[in-house]
């Protein structure tokens, strides 16, 4: 039988039972569209995070207090270290030649208030280096003064949203607010930047690192950000930094140093795994479509017993009968795949319109993987009905008897 003739034969079957056909095509289409859309979400998240990291520049090292003993694990967010990482340590690290800029960070939560308004916000104690390392800037006023390294100055910089909440449209620079128990003068307001790496820059207050030491009554640094010079080798610098820490911490380099690259690679890994996992979940809908095809094909085989018997009587072999039924399943899956891809593309375009910030994008493998899974599922699950049709005894089938 020629492929063209088989296609026509299958098509004539579909035309005769278009509700059944439509139902199966839609089932396959839903599965294919689900796989493509869900993988697009995963891939979009991966791209979003990559872009966030890229905005930091690629020469960033982050030093955490505490040694991460298990290799390959996530860096400790709040390390339990026998020796604290202090501002003095940070300044020693900054003297390593390849380090261009350094920002120590003390982080905590305080209540910021002005007159009767108060907000509990993230409070960052740092130095002017923070602004260059994190690539942020003030929209009004100025950044922290150089003296932040030595003195507990009574100044602060407000996030854009926090400023709006405390001052409304009034001028904030030059005014006084309370950060915890201290009265400080507002010297600048951050530009409205939105979120960066999960830190809401709009809802925080930045104060000099010395001021934060007093406020939280502890010299412990939360972490130290280091920006390296162009062309510096991350490995060598990391070794040097460890040597500096050993010198200052009685021979122990009890810090964890994470480069931005390794952090990005870790995120990338996690998100790729997540994408694969959700696409596997979506693939279950293709499995369901396959089972639906199987059931409906089984019904169709028993409804078409006479026709199958006749085909055999006029010379169709078992192989041809099986091929006819498998061809039917294949055609259904092909139609469903085309429809599913169309729906997925439309969905991606629509979602990009609605959320332009989120780089929704199906990975290159999504459509082929969805289609291959659909085809395999269709063929595997129609194998049983097709074989049953092929094995049918033509004599009994023509009599219309069910053995």
């Amino acid at each position, binding site marked *: 039988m020629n492929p063209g003739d088989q296609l026509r034969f299958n098509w004539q079957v579909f035309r005769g039972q278009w509700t059944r056909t439509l139902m199966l095509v839609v089932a396959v289409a839903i599965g294919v569209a689900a796989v493509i859309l869900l993988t697009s979400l995963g891939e979009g998240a991966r791209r979003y995070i990559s872009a966030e990291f890229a905005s930091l520049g690629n020469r960033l090292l982050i030093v955490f207090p505490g040694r991460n003993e298990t290799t390959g694990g996530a860096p400790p967010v709040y390390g339990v270290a026998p020796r604290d990482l202090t501002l003095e340590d940070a300044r020693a690290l900054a003297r390593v030649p390849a380090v261009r800029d350094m920002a120590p960070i003390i982080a905590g939560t305080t209540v910021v208030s002005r007159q009767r308004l108060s907000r509990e916000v993230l409070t960052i104690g740092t130095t002017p280096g923070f602004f260059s390392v994190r690539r942020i800037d003030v929209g009004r006023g100025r950044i922290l003064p150089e003296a932040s390294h030595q003195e507990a100055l009574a100044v602060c910089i407000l996030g854009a949203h926090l400023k709006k909440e405390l001052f409304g449209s009034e001028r904030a620079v030059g005014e006084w607010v309370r950060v915890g128990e201290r009265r400080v003068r507002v010297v600048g307001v951050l530009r409205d930047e939105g979120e960066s790496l999960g830190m809401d820059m709009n809802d925080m207050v930045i104060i000099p690192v010395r001021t934060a030491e007093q406020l939280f009554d502890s010299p412990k640094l939360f972490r130290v950000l280091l920006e390296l010079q162009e062309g510096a080798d991350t490995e060598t610098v990391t070794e040097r930094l460890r040597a500096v820490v050993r010198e200052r911490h009685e021979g122990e380099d009890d810090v964890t140093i994470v480069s931005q690259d390794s952090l990005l690679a870790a995120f990338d890994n996690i998100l790729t795994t997540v994408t694969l996992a959700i696409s596997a979940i979506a693939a279950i809908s293709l499995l369901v479509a396959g089972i639906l095809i199987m059931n409906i094909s089984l019904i169709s085989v028993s409804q078409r017993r006479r026709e199958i018997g*006749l085909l055999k009587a006029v*010379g169709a*072999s078992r192989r041809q009968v099986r091929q006819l039924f498998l061809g039917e399943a294949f055609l259904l899956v092909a139609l469903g795949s085309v429809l599913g891809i169309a729906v997925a593309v439309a969905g991606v375009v629509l979602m990009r319109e609605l959320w332009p910030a989120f780089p929704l994008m199906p990975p290159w493998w999504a459509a082929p993987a969805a289609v291959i899974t659909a085809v395999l599922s269709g063929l595997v699950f129609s194998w049983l009905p097709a074989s049953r049709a092929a094995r049918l005894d033509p004599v009994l089938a023509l009599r219309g008897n069910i053995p």
Partner: protein
Amino acid sequence: MIELAAVNKTYRMGGQPLHALRDINLNIGAGEYLSVMGPSGSGKSTLLNMIGLLDRPDSGSYRLNGTATEALAEEKRAAMRRDNIGFIFQSFQLVNRLTAFENVELPMVLAGQKRGVRRQAVNEVLDILGIADRRHHRPGQMSGGQLQRVAIARAIVMKPRVLLADEPTGNLDQASGEEVIKALEDLNREGITLLVVTHDLALGRRARRRIRMVDGAISGDDRNESGRSTAL
């Protein structure tokens, strides 16, 4: 051309063995016109299916055109059936979603023949059977006599040597039945071997050779009447 020797076939019906064919010895020459008669369950249809390669004997041999068929693989048997044998059924067995033309075309499509060849052959047989004007009708739009003629057209479109008809007039009124039989006999006169299984005595008597079956065995084999064959 058809040689059955000591053919036996037993079916299991609810645990009870049913001896459908007992030691059948039957030789049919090219161009013969046979009827097979007998009560229900006497094995007529089984014999027909055996000759039509739809069934395999449990023992004995069946040679078609000199080829031993028992040992052939399913694919080979299907091809042999397609090229040598045409079936006609009591209930026509047309595919309802296909037009008369497409129904007749079916064996040629399964054989993988080219479109142009098919078109010519199908139109030719539709003409022979006088239903060329119905070629684009579906089975639902035709009368019983027309349906059976479409079925005959389908049976002969591959130019088979043997035509096997199982109660070809069973579902037809007398006039249509007469037309269908005439059409079959015309084909026999052209040289095709015709085997008709029937309950209908009048129909059975028309054949030049008449086989009676009882309980799976051949109980009578007369050649007579039209004269020519009896003498042989």
